[in-house]
């Protein structure tokens, strides 16, 4: 059979129009199954006719379909479509489950990270504390070693300062390192100064009596061993300690002379 001649006869256009007999329709159906070019020709004719007839339609009326679906009692006959839960397949569920697991995992990781970071901070603080303690210990050790060396040094002059007047029960000692021009004052025997007062250390010349301030002991209360290193470049003949208002005085207040001691020349 000549397929082209058959197509050109115009019978397929009539087939789409529905103008043929039942017998002719069945023949064409059989031919379409056998010859893809006939089927393709029918599809093209149909597409063109659908476009032409659709062009004469009034504007798209969505409510017609809505109305039809209502008449037919369709389940989803509302405009607002309710998507049935059964539409979701296992991939959807798996996907959601996976994202939930992932989110939980992320939260856990973030939480772990925060905990670890705060642990590190705590450890850092502890370390700083220990370092300070070590530094303090080292300082104490150095101080102690210095003291020991001072006590053992022949060149060091030891001057006991005796309690004076009302303060007879107090005492102090001065270790004078002339070479290094410094004294170590051991003030263990002095009471804690009252509020607003400080001890002031004096270097004295005896004839005539000339006091020279070596400074005030501002950290008396906080110092644990009560040994204070004080610079002293004077040719001192005696040392005295008075109680003075905070900041110290120009000249010693003799009523509050606690201890006094003369250096053995």
């Amino acid at each position: 059979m000549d397929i082209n001649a058959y197509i050109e006869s115009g019978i397929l256009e009539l087939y789409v129009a529905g103008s043929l007999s039942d017998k002719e329709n069945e023949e064409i159906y059989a031919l379409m199954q056998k010859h893809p070019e006939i089927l393709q020709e029918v599809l093209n004719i149909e597409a063109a006719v659908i476009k032409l007839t659709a062009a004469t339609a009034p504007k798209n009326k969505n409510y017609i379909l809505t109305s039809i679906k209502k008449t037919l009692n369709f389940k989803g006959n509302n405009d607002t479509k309710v998507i049935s839960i059964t539409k979701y397949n296992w991939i959807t569920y798996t996907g959601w489950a996976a994202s939930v697991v992932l989110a939980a995992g992320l939260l856990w990781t973030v939480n772990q990270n925060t905990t670890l970071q705060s642990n590190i901070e705590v450890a850092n603080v502890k370390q700083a504390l220990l370092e300070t303690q070590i530094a303090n210990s080292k300082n104490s050790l150095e101080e102690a070693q210095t003291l020991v060396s001072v006590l053992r040094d022949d060149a060091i002059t030891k001057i006991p300062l005796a309690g004076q007047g009302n303060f007879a029960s107090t005492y102090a000692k001065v270790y004078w390192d002339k070479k290094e021009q410094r004294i170590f004052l051991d003030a263990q025997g002095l009471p804690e100064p009252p509020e607003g007062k400080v001890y002031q250390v004096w270097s004295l010349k005896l004839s005539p009596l000339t006091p020279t301030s070596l400074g005030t002991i501002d950290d008396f209360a906080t110092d644990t061993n009560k040994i204070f290193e004080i610079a002293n470049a004077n040719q001192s003949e005696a040392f005295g300690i008075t109680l003075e208002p905070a900041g110290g005085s120009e000249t010693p207040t003799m009523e509050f002379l606690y201890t006094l001691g003369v250096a053995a020349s």
Partner: protein
Amino acid sequence: MDLDILVEKFKQKDEKAFESLYAMYSESMHGVIFNIVRNHDIAEEIMQDVFVKAWHKSDTYSSKKGRFFTWILNIARNAAIDKTRSKSFKNTKQNLDASFFVDILETSDNLDNTTDAIGIKNYVGKLAKKCIEVIELLYFKGYTQTEASETLNMPIGTIKTRNRNCIKELRNMVLN
């Protein structure tokens, strides 16, 4: 989706398949129906009747008997023509004499301004009267080849070749 599968599902009363087929053919049917009755409200009413009917008698369709498009086109044309013969319709005094589908395209106030509609309008403007007549009778009115032959007073062979050539022109216009 393959049309055969879609139609098979439709015959098994699958609502989604129905909606797909509606999307494919409803505009075309609306055009055909409106061309016959020339009344918006009546056309919409017939549209509903046609698709409800198609749903209920879906099991009577068989691909051996023709294209699915042709099947629903027949339902639409018959419903519209039945309507024009009813008493109530005659009372509306619609003047349907000598009106062709091209009239709708030429006075297209109520048409979608889609590229297709505009393209077809241009095409139809150039279309020979002999094409308008034969397309109107065969596709919009559902005449058999014998009826068309008698109405246009020409042999069936001539109807077939003329129609073939007219549709060829249409295809060149809208499918390329």
